[in-house]
């Protein structure tokens, strides 16, 4: 059984998606339990795989028993084992939290929603475990296409935002495919491990450089790396709440993972960082991402849109860290990938809880929320502390490594931007807290939504989100602190072994 974990991670949710789709026609009530079972099995398999990889080292799995490089191989080491576990668990928790929201908002679309949801997660998990560059493209498209639909389900401008995302996302995916095509032309292989071997004699070839650059641009587009971020704020800002809290924490992080994988496993860090100037330039782009993300976030009057711009800034953290060209920076980037997934999940889920009760997330809707939803706001505060970088939350420690990486590289712009972004985050979140703390809520039922009179109708002041949303939210908030306290083993046992020796 345990040797089948890599396949199970992808196969179980894929099958579950088919069953959910069927159940959508026959028994809509079964959709949620089926999705839960599928993602639960995937999370269990991902956890098992992580334990296995940590105990016995990297695992290579041949799909259908075909020998690589002809067959598709899954290759799992510390890096993607932890990302897979992260994706599976966040998706699972978010699924639980989505139950009430989907019931309230899309009662007639339960089947399609959960089918798309589970398929999107399948694609993300597949991208993480696969060791095949073309297979990765296929899975990327699965996630993207389902993602467009999941976003488009939202009301108002969501379909338009989704269409915009579709255009830009397709361009990004095409760039990636084009880059992989170049690689195939020069090597005749698509298997990452095989590519790494075949590329060694070819370094210095211009075609290779073009392939690398084009692949990167494609990935940057998909991860919303400034200035290719334009699709993200609208897509995540207008997306239905449970979609936003699925895609915002995971999609960008999976793309950052893919970038790091391409940098260290397909190419070598020596090749990637051979031109110091290029590395510097990318880090400066990251600086721009952090500064621009922070400034744009300042201009928002809606919690979800503000959070979306924070995601843009956070992507800058990770890309910058990975390109600093030293171990500390890379460690920080990977550590931040883990922490950021959980903290973004925490804050977007909190926004989802708020939406569930107030039917809006604009700043006006936040008035008096510390009284009405103290638990949700406490979790939002925990997420905010992580994003600001207050110890003992995980966000502090990843920032710690990133800043040290910046100092070691002598890149003062990067260090300054990280501190600047932290300061702006203080302003951003305390502005939200001020509204929720100082301004009394004006008329509880003024929004006239249909979610306002649920089981908590008895209490006048307190109007918390349902328990099925609160529990995952609390788990995320506590997870932030747990991750912070576990930084020592995370770095020593998990991250340092996978940092390539070529990084100084």
């Amino acid at each position, binding site marked *: 059984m345990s040797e089948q974990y890599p396949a199970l991670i992808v196969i179980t949710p894929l099958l579950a998606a088919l069953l959910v789709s069927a159940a959508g026609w026959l028994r809509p009530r079964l959709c949620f339990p089926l999705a839960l079972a599928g993602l639960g099995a995937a999370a269990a398999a991902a956890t098992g795989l992580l334990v296995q990889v940590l105990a016995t080292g990297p695992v290579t799995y041949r799909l259908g028993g075909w020998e690589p490089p002809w067959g598709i191989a899954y290759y799992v080491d510390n890096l993607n084992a932890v990302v897979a576990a992260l994706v599976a668990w966040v998706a699972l928790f978010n699924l639980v939290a989505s139950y009430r929201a989907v019931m309230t908002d899309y009662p007639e679309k339960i089947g399609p929603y959960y089918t798309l949801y589970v398929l999107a997660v399948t694609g993300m998990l597949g991208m993480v475990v696969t060791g095949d560059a073309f297979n990765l493209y296929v899975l990327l498209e699965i996630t993207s296409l389902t993602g467009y639909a999941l976003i488009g389900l939202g009301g108002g401008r969501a379909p338009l935002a989704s269409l915009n995302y579709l255009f830009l996302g397709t361009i990004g995916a095409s760039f990636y495919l084009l880059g992989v095509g170049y690689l195939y032309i020069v090597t005749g292989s698509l298997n990452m491990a095989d590519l790494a071997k075949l590329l060694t004699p070819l370094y210095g070839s211009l075609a290779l450089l073009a392939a690398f650059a084009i692949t990167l641009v494609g990935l940057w587009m998909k991860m919303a790396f400034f200035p290719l971020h334009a699709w993200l704020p609208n897509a995540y800002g207008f997306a239905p709440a449970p979609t936003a809290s699925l895609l915002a924490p995971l999609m960008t992080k999976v793309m950052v993972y893919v970038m790091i994988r391409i940098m260290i496993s397909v190419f070598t860090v020596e090749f990637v960082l051979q031109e110091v100037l290029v590395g510097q330039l990318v880090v400066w782009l990251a600086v721009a991402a952090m500064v621009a993300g922070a400034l744009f976030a300042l201009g928002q009057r809606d919690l979800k849109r503000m959070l979306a711009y924070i995601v843009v800034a956070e992507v800058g953290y990770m890309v910058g860290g990975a390109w600093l060209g030293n171990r500390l920076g890379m460690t920080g980037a990977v550590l931040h990938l883990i922490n950021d997934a959980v903290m973004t999940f925490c804050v977007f889920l909190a926004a989802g809880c708020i939406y569930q009760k107030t039917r809006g997330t604009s700043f006006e809707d936040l008035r008096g929320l510390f009284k009405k939803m103290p638990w949700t706001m406490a979790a939002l505060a925990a997420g905010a502390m992580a994003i600001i970088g207050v110890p003992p939350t995980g966000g502090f420690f990843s920032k*710690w490594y990133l800043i040290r990486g910046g100092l070691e590289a002598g890149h003062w712009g990067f*260090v300054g931007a990280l501190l600047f972004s932290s300061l702006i985050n*203080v302003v951003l979140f305390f502005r939200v807290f001020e509204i929720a703390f100082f301004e009394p809520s004006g008329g509880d039922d003024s929004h006239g939504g249909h979610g306002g009179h649920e089981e908590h109708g008895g209490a006048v002041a307190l109007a918390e989100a349902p328990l099925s949303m609160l529990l995952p939210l609390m788990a995320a908030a506590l997870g932030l602190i747990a991750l912070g306290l576990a930084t020592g083993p995370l770095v020593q046992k998990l991250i340092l072994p996978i940092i390539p020796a070529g990084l100084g």
Partner: protein
Amino acid sequence: MLHSITPLLAVLASLAAVPFIILLKGRPNAREAVTFIAAGIKLILVASLLPAVLAGGEVEFTLAKVLPGAPLALRVDAFGLLFALVSSSLWIVTSAYSIGYMRGLDEHSQTRYFCFFAVALSATIGVAFSANLFTMYLFYEMLSLATYPLVTHHQDAEARSSGRKYLFYIMGASIALALPAMIITYQQTGTLAFSPTGILAGKVSPVMAGVLLFMFVFGFAKAGIIPVHSWLPAAMVAPTPVSALLHAVAVVKVGVFSILRIITGIYGVDLLKGLDLGMAVAWVAAFTIIVASLIALSQDGLKRRLAFSTIGQLSYIVLGLALLSPKGMTGGALHIAMHAFGKITLFMCAGAIFVATGKKNISQMTGIGKRMPWTMAAFLVGSLSVIGLPPTGGFISKWYLALGCLQAGSVALLVVLLVSSLLNAAYFLPIVYRAYFKPPVEAAWAEGRNEGPAAAWVPPLVTAACSLVLFFYPQPFLRLAQMAVAQLFGG
């Protein structure tokens, strides 16, 4: 070196009270009982560490190895225990006072108030017991955040703008200055553990050492050194028990204590002496002392006058430490305790006056001695202690500070201290004179004694009595300060 979980328990004692305080929110008496129990347990736990430390030992506990060379760890030494004893003993007095004040004024959201007060105390003891700079930074930030809801308790426009100012200075300075300074220190030395000989010697260039030192000194803005002081007068918008315990004792002294750790544990006396950085810091502090005292003279709001007085007195401590002479450093450390007892008395008197009469300004308090004789007597003792006159504890710490100036060979700084003491007298004694010797402005005050709820005016009497006792018997604080300093000088 002793390993024991007691330091952790001492930190957590007040944090553990929070769930109970929330659960008992419908029953105020039971809720406040939780605070008292937690405060009692905390003091007992802190005091139980005293014998080991007085015997020359240190007590350690490591929670988690989060960063190599900078674990999440606690270590109790003489400096830390001195500060922890002051804070945890005054928490008990302040809790009694809080009940008198908050109920006397029928304040809203008392459950939230007592919760965050407990969290703030946990963070304070955490700072006192931190074994390294990273752990200290963690508790420092925890305190910043826990105090925000206390400062903004009234939830009105003034509280909102004061809260902003508070965050801007405290968090802004710590993220923009102290955090990078800490990371650079770690980058250069690979450790953040406080060591009696410092960790930076030989690891940084003189210029870097100077820059880092001032990043720390201004980064820990809670110490209120000019120009990062103006959050403190703004924070006076908080309920008075908060001003009393947090903005005269816990929060501000966490700032000073952080600077103490930087000077003694990160830099070490020899490095600072070698680079003449001690004198640089001492003069920055001297400037703050004089300017803050001058501003205090012109304040009519009693709490604002006290706030500027605090800014000046905090810099006494910094100055004492920066003298780098054994007597001066003893005086600085001792002043943490002596000023605490004196200033908390003054704040509690200000609050008692507000509860009993609704007056906030000094000009409205003429003749109030007729109405509140005991409160004003406590005020007099507190004033004497802050000025540094016998028979109060403040005299002892200032005596050591003066000797320290001479030991460091700086007569100019001694003159600063003396001038400042005169200024202190000039802004405190007229208040007492007005209260007792001028005819009351309000006719009702002449009718006789009425000091409001006992829980509001007895606590300042208790702390005033402590100030008097400390003059005759300044232990264990003096002993702890001397031990800690002896360790720095290889004793």
